[in-house]
């Protein structure tokens, strides 16, 4: 059942390839906006690069959150999953994992390219990639709670953003300061370890909270 749920997600994504690509295109476009707005001065952009990439990653993830549960909720598949003998939170956890593989991971893979376009110093690359690798799953996990809470709301996108964005602040802070530390020659172990700690915490809480929220929405009370 678990493997089936996982395969189902990928099959769904494969059949809607254009939706799969959208967050990635959005990510690249947002990053490209900044040099156009701020001027293409390398000296100006280099210290801002990590912040720009992180903000773009957060926005791109947020854009994709709304679709995490909505379609399955609308056509009743989620209800059938809830009724199956597999604990619901496990299915939800795998859905979140699939969401990260399909939206978070492509952002991580693309990030060095964008960092290069924004003149990020060479010493910062590793901490940016590691930070995104730990940080984007947290974005999917926290986002899953928001997506589950707003699954019943028509045009819930803006409510979802309002709800989730304040909770993204710590990840944004830790993630975007790590490359700055690295640029100054300091190993940003503290930031990355903090991100890892938050990831462990959220991986424990978020599937349970999201499953509970979905159940509240499925049964109406």
């Amino acid at each position, binding site marked *: 059942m678990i493997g089936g749920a996982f395969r189902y997600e990928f099959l769904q994504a494969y059949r809607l390839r254009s939706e799969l690509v959208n967050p990635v295109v959005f990510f690249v476009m947002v990053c490209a906006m900044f040099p156009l707005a701020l001027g293409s001065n390398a000296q100006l952009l280099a210290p801002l690069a990590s912040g720009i990439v992180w903000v773009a990653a957060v926005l791109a993830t947020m854009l994709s959150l709304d679709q995490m549960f909505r379609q399955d909720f609308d056509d009743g598949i989620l209800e059938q999953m809830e009724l199956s003998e597999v604990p619901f939170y496990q299915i939800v956890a795998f859905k979140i994992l699939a969401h990260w593989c399909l939206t978070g991971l492509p952002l991580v893979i693309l990030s060095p390219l964008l960092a290069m376009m924004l003149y990020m110093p060479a010493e910062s690359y590793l901490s940016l990639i590691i930070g995104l690798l730990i940080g984007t799953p947290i974005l999917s996990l926290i986002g899953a709670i928001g997506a589950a809470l707003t699954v019943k709301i028509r045009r819930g996108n803006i409510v979802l953003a309002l709800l989730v964005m*304040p909770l993204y602040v710590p990840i944004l802070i830790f993630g975007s300061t790590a490359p700055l530390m690295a640029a100054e020659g300091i190993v940003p172990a503290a930031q990355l370890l903090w991100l890892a700690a938050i990831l462990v915490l959220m991986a424990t809480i978020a599937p349970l909270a999201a499953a509970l929220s979905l159940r509240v929405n499925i049964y109406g*009370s």
Partner: protein
Amino acid sequence: MNWVWFHKWASPKWFFQKTDALVLWFGFLCLILLTVGTVWGLAFAPEDFKQGNSFRIFYIHVPSAILAQSIFMAMAISAAVGLIWRIKLAHIFVEVAAPIGASITLLALLTGAIWGKPTWGTWWVWDARLTSTLIQFFIYLGIISLYQAIENRDTASKATAIACLVGIVNLPIIKFSVNWWNTLHQPATFKLTEAPSMATEMWVPGLIMMIGFYLFFAYLVLIRMRSEVLEREKRSAWVREYLEKKDVL
């Protein structure tokens, strides 16, 4: 221990009848305390030797900032109570307290900005405390918009309660991250004045204002909870009886 007294408070009817007199008392007391505190603090408390008269906004800023945090804490506890024991009154408290909490947080932010101009020379600093209060304000707004957006009332109550609990888990992390980020970037030129060893005649009106603010919150919450209870129980016999006695029907 006998828990009957606790269970009784979960009944909307009991709550409504027992708080009838309480509301007036809270209103009366907070009126007295806020008046005394404001007049004492703004007119009679001694002037700060460094900040002059501008420090007097302390008597509004500090109580509102502390109250804003307490309200969020109370909301989270109440949300947990509502989810675990399925007590509707607890959910009502969360829904009713959220807009009050948001406005008190906004008051703390605005008075802080007004205080910041004469003392720091700027309206806004990305200082740790200011930033985390701002984010707390955003969390309040997110919770309110979630509650407003869901049509079914039961679903909305539970979803709001879950959002509150997720928010309270995140609040320490946010505080910590902001504190830390602040020490990385912000030179220590601006700092919230560390609790000065105040003169007694200076902090006593502050304490009065603080108690007054808490009572004001209790007063507002009770009024709003009572009207919400009346609306939700409008089909029950005791509400009709109450309204008939009041000569409304």
